[in-house]
């Protein structure tokens, strides 16, 4: 009864195409925003910030980037982490070599560099599709990481290859504390998520989805394929680049190529699959899921180990993690290929009818 939209009429196109057309949704999102921006910073522990919330938000941003490419434009990519790395290293170099560079601008610069590299590796998509494109993105993953390791100028000739990221200082305020970093990352992620949603419901999103569904027809109605595909790669890589910069500056504290391995690319792909391909909400849900599962698993196993005295080794936990991830991916693909976002939609529809069954 609570979730009925009866009586809420849309009197303008603006109202009809709004992101949250139903009043209950608007109230809900206001509550959520108040919670994450006000309540959480005041109540969460530093561990919660540093180990869970911050990586969750950063990887949501990366998942959003991948979703733009895969979900909206239909181009497969297994090289997400490499574009994140470009963003991180580019930001580092901007901060290092441009005196007085504001760090937010450096992040944007990192994103732009990643976008340029994304366009370069997106060029093959004009001729190749499907798995072949996936393999081409693997080329990007391996090649980019090799360049970042070998070319000394990029790492400022650091002998160990591990560079400490500079401090985040905005308008004189140092973002040292976990709560501060959390708020920064949350703000950036929220703004970019909004931008993504706007693009998705606008002409550019429709062009992408048209190219994804039937590119020949898209061409016939006047959509320029090359521009649409390369734009998708550019925007997607921009998001990944910014995420990568945040990953280094607000999470790891270091800028190193190993952090952006193929493994990370797969994790982000899993987030997109589990969360729901082609949805903004799905990027966040998937990231939350993939970030939380190892934590929950580890906690559960340790608890069982302690209470039942099973003597489980550390390595078993990491193997279990692999098995659980793998199993969950298969499970989701069988049960709900459209991911958690679809499950949420179904829940809302049931809520609309509640207490009636149908």
């Amino acid at each position, binding site marked *: 009864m609570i979730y009925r939209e009866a009586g809420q009429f849309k009197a303008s196109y603006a109202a009809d195409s709004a992101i949250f057309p139903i009043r209950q949704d608007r109230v809900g999102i206001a509550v959520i925003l108040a919670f994450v921006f006000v309540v959480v910073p005041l109540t969460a522990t530093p561990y919660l910030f540093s180990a869970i919330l911050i990586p969750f938000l950063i990887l949501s941003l990366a998942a959003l980037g991948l979703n733009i490419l895969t979900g909206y434009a239909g181009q497969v990519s297994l090289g997400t982490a490499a574009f994140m790395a470009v963003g991180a290293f580019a930001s580092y170099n901007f901060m290092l070599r441009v005196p007085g560079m504001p760090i937010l601008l450096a992040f944007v610069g990192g994103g732009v560099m990643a976008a340029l590299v994304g366009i370069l590796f997106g060029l093959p998509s004009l001729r190749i599709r499907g*798995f072949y494109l996936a393999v*081409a993105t693997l080329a990007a993953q391996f090649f980019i990481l090799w360049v970042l390791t070998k070319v000394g100028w990029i790492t400022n000739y650091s002998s160990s290859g591990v560079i400490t990221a500079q401090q985040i200082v905005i308008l004189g305020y140092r973002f040292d504390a976990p709560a501060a970093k959390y708020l920064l990352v949350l703000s950036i992620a929220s703004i970019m998520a909004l931008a993504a949603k706007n693009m998705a419901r606008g002409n550019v999103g429709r062009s992408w989805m048209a190219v994804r569904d039937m590119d020949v027809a898209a061409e016939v109605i006047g959509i320029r394929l090359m521009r649409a595909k390369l734009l998708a790669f550019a925007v997607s890589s921009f998001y990944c680049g910014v995420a990568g910069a945040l990953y280094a500056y607000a999470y790891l504290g270091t800028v190193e190529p190993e952090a952006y391995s193929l493994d990370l690319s797969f994790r982000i792909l899993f987030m997109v*699959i589990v969360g729901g391909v082609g949805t903004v909400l799905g990027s966040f849900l998937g990231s939350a899921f993939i970030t939380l599962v190892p934590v929950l698993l580890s906690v559960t196993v340790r608890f069982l180990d302690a209470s039942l005295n099973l003597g489980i080794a550390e390595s078993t936990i990491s193997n279990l993690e692999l098995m659980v991830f793998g199993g969950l991916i298969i499970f989701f*693909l*069988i049960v709900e290929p459209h991911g958690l976002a679809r499950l949420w939609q179904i829940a809302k529809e049931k809520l609309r009818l509640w207490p009636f069954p149908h």
Partner: protein
Amino acid sequence: MSFFFEVLIGGLLSGIMYSLVALGFVLIYKASGVFNFAQGALVFFAALTFVGLGELKLPFWLALPATLAVMVLLAFVIERLMLRPLVNQPQITLFMATIGLAFFIEGLAQMMWGANVRGLDLGLQDEPIQWISDKTGMNISKFDLAAAGVAALLVAVLAIFFNRTRVGRALRAVADDHQAALAVGIPLRQIWTIVWGVAGAVALVAGLLWGARNGVQYALTFVALKALPVLILGGFESVPGAIVGGLIIGASEKLAEVYIGPFVGGGIEGWFPYVLALVFLLVRPEGLFGEKIIRRI
């Protein structure tokens, strides 16, 4: 000059090893239209199981069929729990499911047998063949040559299997269209179990050879990733293509590392095959032996 040939031949022979892994991919793709990302994990699992059984004091001639039986059982389970529920889903969904499967099998293998690096002794030494190095000054490994022989044999068997038998024809029908195959009464489930079982056997052979060469360790799963450029060159559906593709990738990888590597700081083996495949794709998207895709609107 003979150094060049040595590197070339070494590359070709290691390329055969890639082909073995690629063969497993081709089998499954030909017969079920599924791109099996978990092939590398299967290689790893097979090798680890074999070595693990050896550590349990099983002699070679018992461990081998036992491992084969395990692989067939695994195929059975995969068909039942993963392939059957996903029948007729788009290819990309099945591809992603096999990524999940890869993770699962890797975790399972390590949980069952532990993650220590082990050696594998097949009685073949990685030594140069004496009379060749005496005559030509080139070092060509006994092991590599034997591996090439095994691969050639396997390819011949599989080629006959696909083209001359009823089961082979049924497999090709299934690869084209699941529903149509069902409609003419081809028992999909049995076919899939057979194919994944055969792919498992191929994975076992590849696992034993790679394991003997590099040791049985987690890095074995990355060998599968190398097989992807092989498939791009050779086409996803061609058994001879997998061999030719493997040869090209193996040879070019080694030659590039030796001749171009020193100028750019080395380590180009990691990405060179991919970039090569990428360039190739731009010129000929369906691979050397693949079928041209014609789209009608």
